[in-house]
């Protein structure tokens, strides 16, 4: 029972960080006043870029340096994601287009491009197997002591590098937003760009930086799903799965009430909900060995994270506290000369 629970939590963390990347990226973006519905597409782009980065390493040498593989994966994931983020930023910041529509276009493009790119550029010539073995080893490598320290080891040390990276990023984001002048300025831009502009904050600059960094971080979520959680196995529906995860990331932002620190906890909760079915089954089997949750209930379990998000959304809107509300100018474009 206890081991199952530890295993459950470990997996919840492993899966949760995928949400954490997407959510932290979206929080940064939303703090600048931009609701980026392109996050699902951007996370897909991260997966596509990561696969390309890793593949390039293997094309260059049959047994590349582990550090290099991870670095290339991260670098390309961030580059690809930021590229789509840049398009979103250009449309919504410079060209002041509708954010909902621009975001959806980014998702449509990102998901389509990823599917096309993975099928036609990365997964050709039998690289699939190579990628799956390769990625797994390096991205999923646990810290020393993971096996020897019992439940502590498996809960806190038995994770790939990206898991720790996600938590570090979330903590840094929390600190920057709360304790630095840059964070104060970013929040001001999201609350009231006209005010921020009037005190000499470079509104456009902050918006672009927040969108680009946000997109790059979210892109790591796609990389994390493919290389860490899936162990490098790239299926044909990977773009659809990541898209679903991406929408949940946007939901998680609400769940975390725009606070990166809360997002760490929230992402683990979401991760736990997402993988609940198999673990619940095995826990119930301990109580009653003959018990078997029918597989047809799987879709019902899949509903839970979305339903929980809706409940949080309703709860926060009913309570209506000032601290839990979205940035005041979220979704509005800013034009200085508007009268």
């Amino acid at each position, binding site marked *: 029972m206890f081991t199952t629970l530890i295993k459950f939590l470990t997996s919840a963390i492993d899966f949760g960080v995928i949400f954490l990347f997407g959510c932290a990226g979206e929080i940064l973006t939303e703090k600048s006043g931009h609701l980026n519905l392109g996050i699902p597409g951007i996370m897909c782009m991260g997966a596509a870029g990561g696969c390309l980065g890793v593949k390039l390493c293997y094309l260059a040498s049959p047994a590349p340096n582990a550090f290099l593989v991870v670095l290339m994966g991260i670098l390309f994931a961030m580059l690809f994601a930021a590229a789509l983020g840049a398009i979103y930023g250009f449309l919504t910041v410079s060209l002041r287009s509708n954010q*909902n529509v621009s975001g*959806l276009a980014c998702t*449509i*493009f990102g998901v*389509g*491009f990823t599917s096309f790119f993975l099928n036609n550029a990365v997964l050709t010539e039998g690289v699939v197997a190579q990628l799956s073995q390769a990625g797994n080893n390096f991205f999923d490598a646990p810290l020393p002591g993971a096996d020897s320290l019992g439940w502590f080891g498996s809960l806190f040390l038995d994770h790939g590098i990206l898991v720790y990276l996600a938590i570090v990023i979330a903590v840094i984001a929390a600190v920057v937003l709360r304790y630095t002048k840059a964070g104060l300025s970013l929040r001001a831009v999201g609350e009231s760009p006209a005010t921020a502009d009037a005190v000499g904050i470079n509104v456009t600059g902050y918006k672009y930086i927040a969108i680009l960094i946000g997109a790059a971080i979210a892109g790591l979520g796609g990389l994390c799903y493919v290389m860490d959680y899936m162990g490098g196995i790239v299926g044909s529906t990977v773009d659809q799965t990541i898209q679903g995860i991406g929408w949940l990331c946007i939901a998680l932002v609400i769940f975390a009430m725009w606070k990166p620190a809360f997002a760490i906890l929230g992402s683990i909760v979401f991760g736990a909900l997402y993988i609940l079915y198999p673990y619940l089954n095995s826990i119930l089997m301990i109580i009653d060995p003959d018990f078997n949750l029918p597989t*047809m209930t799987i879709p019902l379990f899949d509903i839970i994270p*979305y339903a929980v*998000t809706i409940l949080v959304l309703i709860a926060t809107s009913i309570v*209506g506290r000032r601290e839990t509300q979205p940035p005041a100018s979220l979704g509005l474009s800013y034009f200085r000369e508007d009268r």
Partner: protein
Amino acid sequence: MKNTKEPFIHITRREGMPLWKGLLIRAAAVLIALILSDIVISAAAPRSQGFFGFFGALFSGAFGTERRIWLLFQDTFLLLGVAVALVVAFKMKFWNLGGNGQILMGCLACAICLKYLGGKLPDPLVWLIMLVASLAAGALWAVIPAIFKAFFNTNESLFTLMMNYIAMNLVAFFISYWYPNGTATMPPLTEGVLPPLGEGQMGKSLLPILLFAVVTAAIYLYLRFSKHGYEVALIGDSKNTARYAGINVKKVIIRTLILSGALCGLVGFVLTGSVNRMIHDTMDNNMGFTGIMVAWMGNLDPLIMAGVSFFINFLTRGMAQVCTKFGFTSEALSDTVVGLVYFFFIGCEFFIRYRVHFAGRQNKQRGEETPTPPEDGERKRAPLSKDAGEKEAN
């Protein structure tokens, strides 16, 4: 003291660009997007067909056979139906991103009726029950977020977005409940489905085409001339003013979303009851999202939206042919190109709504720069001439 430079680019808002000019800019943007796609695809394709081969394939994919033409029009009107359903909500500035879910719920309700009533009751009665159930299911999926929006101002875009995935999983649940060991797709249903209206593809396509042409016209009239439509537009423009006019805003939000959702449900009804005659969990074909693009690109005007819907379906169908002809294994290329067209289309709006000035050019062209549409409000209020000012001073 450090001298700052004169800004190089300087942007001002413009209003009332003539329609033809706006259309021209949009057409140019789309053309650039297509040419760009053509060049990249031709360069990367395993079996390139040349610059014009791209456009040839595009047109033959869309119009190549009579069947394709019927399918093109069928999809155009289905998508238009979804877009029109969403416009009803958008006019109120209610961001209904839940089209996918509302369509799927329509499909599900229809499928349940077919499954349990098909062949057991007279067909016309089944059709009626199917229709009512689909409309109700779609409306239900839209009205839940609407109720919370109305009473607690719950963010509707995120709420409706989440509802999509709940609907999708509900459909998946029912399929695995009906076919525990089967695949995710259901064998076609035969009993109780709507009969074709004629021979071949035309017979199958005619129902959605006629139905949604009528629906579009009706919604156009509803929004433009009815008291309800006036209320919807008023709430979209200013909630305070609507309240001041004595409108029960909560009631109108709920009523409008029932209509919006029911129309999406109607699309589901046609998809399951007539076009596909079965159900699976991606049957909405992402029309809920594409419909948003259509509505927005069509300026929320049903007539322009019809054109946009036609163009997007032309592109999707045409690109499928391009993929085959150019030797790509994945059809996802189609989405990529459509996405690119969206980017250009969205981006070009900027040049319709704003005017860009470059440094150094601003002094000389003051005179001819004023917007000159006949309906422009600024024209008649010509700036007071200097003489007038002096006269007053004396």
